[in-house]
């Protein structure tokens, strides 16, 4: 059983290497490798989850070096539950991205670059969850970051390079800070094994302990995008390809939250920074959600709610009780699933209409009922409508906060409820404007879809014209599509459409929004960052992957009993600390 522990780290790395060697060829084999690898990782994570729940933490020492000296990988309840959810999400997003790339006729670049980077990132995430070694945690961060750099700047368009610069610099600074923290830790204790650190931090002078704790906390807080350090996230996430954003939103910040949990529970139990974390959580929740309410772009709105809801988990950690920790873990599980599915739906909206700005959207409920349902369910889940898992997570946290009873905790409970309401306001506003209202005449509505079932060659043509990224290429391709425009208008473009926005003025007027608004809309970016043709056709795997995630989010309601019992067990194991330490260092200690 122990030998399965390294699989989630090693297997994606091997697959990435294999795929790099194959390059852009053998599409089916490549797809099989990617999906197969992630499916195996998911299966192994499930096995580990059950085993860790039954037998306690599973430990394996990399390279056979004994525990305090070598790198140990530890699969306890917290690590395995995070691992399981993250690999399920990773698998769904991978299916989604493959379907999107295939439908957009973009094959070579995704296969040769996107997939390996994706796999390396997922290996990094697994490593971060499993590692029992502080320096290896740094390496895991670097692994997932280098994967995410590539995914974020994929295609190298101007906006992505700009977003990538912000992201890379923030990540680099936090990595350097992490190294400084490791240097101080090693200088003070002479070890980087977390189990041994947990024992060796206790006798240290208080000031040194506080220094190390605060430095490490700062690093993780940057990763998790907690308030004073959250500004980078909404600037960098929305420009990335939809599947990458979805994955980042689901996993990367949760890696930071996971690290905060480990830090607070294992290394510095009951440290003096609990109060600080409380206030940070409050500021994160409120400022994040206020930012979300001000946005007009769905992806940006979601990025802000992402930041905001990190506050809930930090709140749970800061309470430092079994209830709080259990709530934080439950909330993390819920939030990974829901946030990822919302970003995937945003990607589908973008593919359907060419934009995610609610100013230019409207009437999607009539146009794309399936997308609407797929958006509505996780959006309500995010806002915490009972009986969905968002409500359960918030309920657990509120109960833990009330049980704590201190004024700060009660303030946070109130802040959490306000945040929940404001989240509902933000998503309801998006819902009203993008899905419910009648589309204004110049909105990219029903009549502006340029590619329907009959014209797959259109997409091919644009794919060919894409080769050179020069300024004239979009014009040329746009013109060639414009020629075919009026003919298609009557065909697939009008499911429930009000006869085209420019009906009375003839084709000249109708082309206005058609050619400029949707055909090659600025900011409409496919997986490689070039402008794509919008389509009424959603490949079934895209819908299937998103629906699977939505269903996973809903299934937490069905499994609420076992799940919350499990999170309570997880929290108890975390706060006891002994199982982890003795599993790593041997039960004699």
């Amino acid at each position, binding site marked *: 059983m122990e030998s399965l522990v390294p699989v989630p780290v090693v297997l994606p790395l091997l697959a990435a290497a294999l795929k790099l060697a194959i390059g852009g060829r053998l599409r089916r084999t490549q797809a099989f490798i990617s999906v197969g690898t992630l499916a195996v990782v998911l299966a192994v994570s499930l096995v580990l989850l059950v085993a860790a729940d039954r037998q306690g933490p599973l430990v394996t020492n990399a390279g056979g070096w004994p525990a305090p*000296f070598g790198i140990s990988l530890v699969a306890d309840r917290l690590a395995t539950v995070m691992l399981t959810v993250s690999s399920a999400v990773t698998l769904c997003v991978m299916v989604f991205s493959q379907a999107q790339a295939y439908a957009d006729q973009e094959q070579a670049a995704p296969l040769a670059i996107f997939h390996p980077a994706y796999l390396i990132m997922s290996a990094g995430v697994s490593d971060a969850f499993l590692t029992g070694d502080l*320096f290896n945690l*740094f*390496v895991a961060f*670097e692994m997932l970051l*280098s994967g995410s*750099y*590539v995914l974020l*700047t994929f295609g*190298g*368009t*101007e*906006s992505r*390079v*700009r*977003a*990538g*610069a*912000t992201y*890379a*610099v923030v990540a*680099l*600074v936090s*990595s*350097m800070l992490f*190294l*400084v923290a*490791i*240097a*101080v830790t*090693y*200088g003070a204790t*002479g070890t*980087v094994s977390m189990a041994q650190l947990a024992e060796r931090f206790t006798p240290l002078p208080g000031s040194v302990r506080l220094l190390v704790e605060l430095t490490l906390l700062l690093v993780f807080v940057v990763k998790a995008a907690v308030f004073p350090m959250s500004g980078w996230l909404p*600037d960098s996430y*929305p420009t990335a390809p939809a599947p990458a954003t979805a994955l980042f939103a689901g996993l990367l910040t949760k890696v930071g939250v996971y690290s905060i949990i480990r830090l607070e529970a294992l290394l510095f139990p009951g440290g003096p920074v609990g109060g600080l974390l409380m206030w940070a959580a409050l500021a994160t929740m409120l400022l994040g959600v206020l930012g979300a309410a*001000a*946005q*007009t*772009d769905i992806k*940006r709105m979601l990025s802000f709610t992402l930041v905001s809801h990190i506050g809930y988990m930090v709140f749970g950690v800061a309470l430092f009780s079994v209830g709080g920790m259990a709530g934080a873990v439950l909330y993390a599980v819920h939030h990974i699933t829901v946030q990822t599915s919302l970003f995937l739906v945003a990607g589908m909206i973008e593919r359907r209409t060419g934009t995610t700005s609610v100013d230019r959207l409207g009437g999607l409920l009539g146009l794309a009922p399936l997308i609407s349902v797929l958006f509505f369910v996780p959006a309500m889940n995010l806002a915490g409508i009972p009986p969905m898992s968002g409500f359960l997570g918030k309920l657990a946290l509120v109960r833990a906060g009330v049980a704590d009873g201190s004024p700060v905790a009660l303030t946070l409970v109130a802040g959490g409820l306000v945040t929940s309401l404001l989240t509902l306001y933000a998503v309801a506003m998006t819902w009203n404007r993008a899905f419910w209202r009648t589309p204004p005449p110049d909105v990219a509505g029903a009549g502006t879809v340029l590619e329907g079932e009959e014209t797959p060659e259109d997409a091919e043509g644009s794919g060919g014209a894409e080769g050179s990224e020069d300024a004239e290429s979009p014009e040329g391709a746009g013109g060639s599509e414009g020629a075919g425009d009026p003919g298609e208008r009557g065909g697939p473009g009008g499911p429930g459409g009000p006869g085209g926005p420019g009906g009375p003025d003839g084709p000249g007027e109708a082309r206005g929004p058609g050619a400029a608004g949707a055909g090659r809309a600025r900011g409409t970016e496919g997986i490689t960052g070039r402008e794509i043709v919008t389509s009424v056709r959603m490949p079934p795997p895209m819908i299937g992957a998103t629906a699977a995630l939505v269903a996973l989010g809903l299934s937490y309601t069905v499994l609420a009993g076992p799940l919350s019992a499990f999170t309570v067990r997880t929290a108890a194991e975390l706060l006891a600390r002994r199982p982890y330490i003795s599993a790593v260092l041997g039960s004699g200690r």
Partner: protein
Amino acid sequence: MSVPLLPIAASATLVAAGASLLLERSLVRLLAGVILLGNGVNLLIVTVSGPPGDPPILGRSAPGRMADPLPQAMVLTSIVITMGVTAFLLSMVHRSWQLTGGDEVQDDTEDRRVRLRSQRGEIAEAVRERRRAYRGLVAGQRAELVRLNAARHERERRAAREMRRRIDETGAELDRWVREHGEALPPERVAERRAEARRAEEESRRERHERVRRIREDFARRERELAEHEREVRERLKVRRREARKQMRAAIRADRARQARAEDPDLEGDD
């Protein structure tokens, strides 16, 4: 363990220089900052993690005099990682140079859009405020006009009453005079007096007509003046409104231009 001051100072200098370079907008300087920062931190790890010693290779030096090998392994790892990240940043610099001809990090346009929206809201609010003020002004002028009208009617009514009173008075006086001198005077005198009285009455009627005419003229003039005044106020209001609208349009245009500049890399500045 004694603290080796020199390496720590060197590391601090490197970190400080790297951090200040990281604050630059140019990606190349940023890259230099990352490299300096990485070197400073690596130096710190090696310095603080134990006393110096012999190379940690079995068979070449006694295990007791060896330096701790773990920090060296960590530093090696971090050097490799820094190198990889540096390569990535370099490629990003190159891409940025390809796309924009420079390596400056651009502002986020979506942030600008949100800011622009709030500015537009403020301007619209100001315009609404001013329109409300003008409406209040117009209403005040109208009320003033109504008040003046009422006052004029009152004055006219009073003048008419006065005149009727005087006519009655004159009639009563005439009657009295007739009663006193009726018998004493010869009929021709009476006729003369009557003619005189009629003349006087005629004259007074003319005078009265004259006065009514004057009052009417006066009233018409005043009304014209008032209308003139109101027109003027309206004109002024229109001009001001147009000006406000022009201002708003100019502000919006300027914002758009700024926005365009933000997207135009050559003109990019620190807003």
